[in-house]
């Protein structure tokens, strides 16, 4: 058969068979025992031409309601933010996307330097000493932070605030189970971690306290206080943070965090149905040799030129094998590149401006809902998210909104029984005043 991805001709094949000294390709498969040899043809769909396949898949894509055709107020950890057009141009350079892990630094300086810059930008935003080259996503990064803490402190309990993203908490549970670590949820009160309950739950076997900043409800908690409580009991303090919010918020590194993780999706990475996004992992020099995943470091070549290499690899699975504390190898390099380009485009001024706009817009939405008579829950500061009591099933509300071209909020009752009939509405800088007004108007009409 001929295929555009397979360049060998029949002449090539015959010459190669002759060089090997065999008559047919089948002879190369004779070491597969007869009983397990697959005979016949795989029962999968036949090949399609480029045009026909593109048409079919474009039709499937058009069956989905996307945020270019609908106005979306859905966030809950994944956001529709400004994506500088330049991002896709950079990551489409195939010298980047068709390369693999930079094992040969002499011909991978581009990727290595880009990662080094990513590490620096994450350090700048989080206020931590160092950051790795990326993790799968914010949820698994948080889970790995938890298992690292358990290994480091030799303790077997993690306290996770109920105000951490519910799916991230689920992932923490799954990872912890792997290493026989107990996970206890700290209840929320008024949209923030219940400090009294935290004081009751924490003990000498607590490896770490895990919180989110801003939290799942968009609230900015007094995390410094939580960090003190964790440290008073000899545990680590782990903060999952939206890096975009850190344009205006005090970085976790200045508030006592030992590890700051999160997802860089808000920086130039499309929602794409939940992945791939881009986890990050930042920590202190004290924990440097326990960081999971790849680290890029600066060095020099034989002639003294500056260059970059993968470093401190003694931590990693391919060296430590069964002594490794994490098994991660491939991470999200291309998305880390995308996030770097977006962070670079925003720059020192833009990252402040975009974070501020998100606060202003969320504030506007909160006040608009309140003016319309809705009960908007919790404190003064809201980043991206507000909790609105709709007094009826959120699914019903969302169905009605969808008819009007609006993708509604996240149904909090699905994960927080105390918040049944409450929707989590996300507002980013992408939403205009008119769109917010229209949402409030439609919801008011449904409310009546």
């Amino acid at each position, binding site marked *: 058969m001929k295929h555009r991805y*397979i360049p060998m001709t029949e002449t*090539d094949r015959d010459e190669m068979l002759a060089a090997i000294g065999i008559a047919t390709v089948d*002879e190369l498969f004779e070491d597969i*025992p007869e009983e397990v040899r697959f005979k016949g043809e*795989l*029962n*999968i769909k036949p*090949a399609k031409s480029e045009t026909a396949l*593109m048409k079919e898949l474009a039709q499937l*894509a058009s069956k*989905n309601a*996307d*945020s270019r055709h609908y106005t979306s107020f859905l966030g809950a950890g994944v956001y*529709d933010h400004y994506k*500088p057009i*330049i991002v*896709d141009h*950079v990551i489409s*350079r*195939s*010298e980047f*996307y*068709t*390369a*693999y892990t930079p094992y040969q630094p002499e*011909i991978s300086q*581009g*990727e290595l330097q880009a990662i080094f810059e990513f590490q*620096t*930008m994450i350090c*700048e935003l989080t206020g931590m000493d160092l950051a790795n080259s990326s993790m799968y996503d914010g949820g698994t990064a948080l889970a790995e932070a938890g298992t690292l803490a358990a290994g480091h402190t030799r303790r077997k309990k993690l306290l996770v605030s109920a105000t951490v*993203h519910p799916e991230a908490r689920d992932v923490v549970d*799954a990872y912890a*189970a792997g290493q026989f670590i107990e996970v206890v949820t700290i209840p929320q009160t008024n949209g923030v971690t219940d400090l009294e309950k935290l004081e009751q739950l924490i003990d000498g076997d607590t490896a770490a306290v895990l919180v989110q900043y801003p939290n799942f409800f968009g609230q900015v908690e007094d995390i410094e206080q939580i960090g003190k409580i964790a440290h008073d009991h000899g545990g680590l303090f782990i903060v999952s943070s939206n890096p975009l919010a850190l344009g*205006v*918020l005090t970085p976790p590194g200045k508030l006592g965090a030992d590890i700051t993780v999160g997802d860089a999706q808000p920086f130039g990475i499309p929602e*794409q*149905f*939940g*992945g*791939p996004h881009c986890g990050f992992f930042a920590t202190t*020099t004290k924990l*440097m040799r326990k960081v999971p995943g790849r680290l890029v*470091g600066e060095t020099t*070549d034989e002639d003294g030129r*500056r260059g970059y*290499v993968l470093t401190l690899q003694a931590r990693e*699975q391919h060296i*430590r094998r069964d002594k490794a504390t994490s098994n*991660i*190898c*491939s991470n999200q390099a*291309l998305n880390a590149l995308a996030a770097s380009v977006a962070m670079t485009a*925003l720059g020192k001024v833009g*990252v*402040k401006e*975009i974070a501020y706009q998100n*606060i202003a817009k969320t*504030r506007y939405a909160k006040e608009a809902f309140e003016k319309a008579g809705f009960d908007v829950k919790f404190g003064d500061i809201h980043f991206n998210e507000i909790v609105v009591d709709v007094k009826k099933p959120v699914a019903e509300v969302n169905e009605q909104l969808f008819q009007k071209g609006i*993708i509604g909020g996240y149904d909090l009752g699905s994960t927080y029984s105390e918040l049944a009939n409450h929707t989590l509405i996300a507002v980013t800088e992408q939403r205009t005043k008119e769109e917010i007004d229209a949402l409030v108007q439609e919801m008011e009409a449904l409310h009546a």
Partner: protein
Amino acid sequence: MRNENQPLIFEVSKEGRIGYSLPELDVPEVDLANLLPQAYIRSEEAALPEVSELDIMRHYTALSNRNHGVDTGFYPLGSCTMKYNPKINEAVARLSGFANIHPLQEESTVQGAMEIMYDLQEHLSEITGMDEVTLQPAAGAHGEWTALMMIRAYHEANGDFNRTKVLVPDSAHGTNPASATVAGFDTITVKSNDNGLVDIEDLKSKVGDDTAALMLTNPNTLGLFEEDILKMAEIVHGVGGKLYYDGANLNAVMAKARPGDMGFDAVHLNLHKTFTGPHGGGGPGSGPVGVKADLAPFLPKPVLVKEGERYTFEYNRPQSIGRVKPFYGNFGIYLRAYTYIRSMGPDGLKAVTEYAVLNANYMMRRLEPYFDLPYPQHCKHEFVLSGRRQKKLGVRTLDMAKRLLDFGYHPPTIYFPLNVEEGMMIEPTETESKETLDSFIDAMIQIAKEVKETPEIVQEAPHTTVVNRLDETKAARHPVLRYKEKEEELVNV
């Protein structure tokens, strides 16, 4: 090529330049001081670069020119399957109906996306011969861990809490023992025999009622098919253990043999290897896991199912190991893998395997006179040469790898697997032409000649890259992991 240092983006930054475009704020301004305690308002700006859009494009273009990808040239990195990344894949992944959908939308509004995921599961089940597939794991290592957690849950559900050991051959990828450890198991190493295959007697002596699973790559990392696979399955199943297939090397057997038919109970695939999701400079990948029916109750949540004509995520799975990743995995990579499979069809995938194997054997036979070949039988998609002949002349495999850079090639995987001295693991893939293979072979032959005649050319390589050999010891002893205006090394307290 050897220029001055390539500046960091921070070094070209200039106060007052911007590279973004945000709309004017169309809602009232807010005073942060009224909303937040002072302690939570950032006092020191994050020192991100201040550059124009052209500055950004020039910077990253310069970086890309200092990087070698498959589109740049041949990349025979063993066990990584550096095949061509089709461009239609990229076009499909960028369709707005795929790129701009939110994972928490009502299911009725994302049926097109769910249909593709479901159909991909079906295709991967057929290709691997497994009963059910979860797409969720984010990469191969994540898939290994997911499958091991399922195997652990399976044993525990049988009241079998003593199965604490996972057997791993000495030729295995480093992720295997690491995944076993993070899934709560102890790793037991199984020896290879003189033919490079698992030593059956050693395996027999190590299995028992404490065996949870055997992890196996087949063909193994030497590129050799484990011919005794059925016997191994019998031994492991005989003591109540499970058989796990590391799918990193599936490109060697697609449409020729299926893990499910070999007796494997669980398998992970690397969609970014065999199925052309690009490697991305080290991800994002995707590591779906396929299992036989008896492991299916333990699949991670949610499980994508089809009810009539409707696709839905099932959450009510009481025996599930839980959620291994937020949302549903790396959907953007599924799109690329699915597009690839649909571009190839059943004949195409079979041809992929045949040419991947033919190409590897051709290279192996042509190079055999010049390098040691510890395992001389036919290989599958990759083969491992040893540089011990050259080492005796004072030239190491590392030197030869660096010399290949001067010829414009990415070197093979080196010093792996661990059971070959001075190993060079070469995987050409099926997407390379005979001319490319021949040119690479010629370069290798020339290097072998240089080792004898002018070894210093090889020992001092590379000669043409933007930097020469970098001081890795310095990087590790005095770690500089981020840019600071005034550089300082991180001190390990």
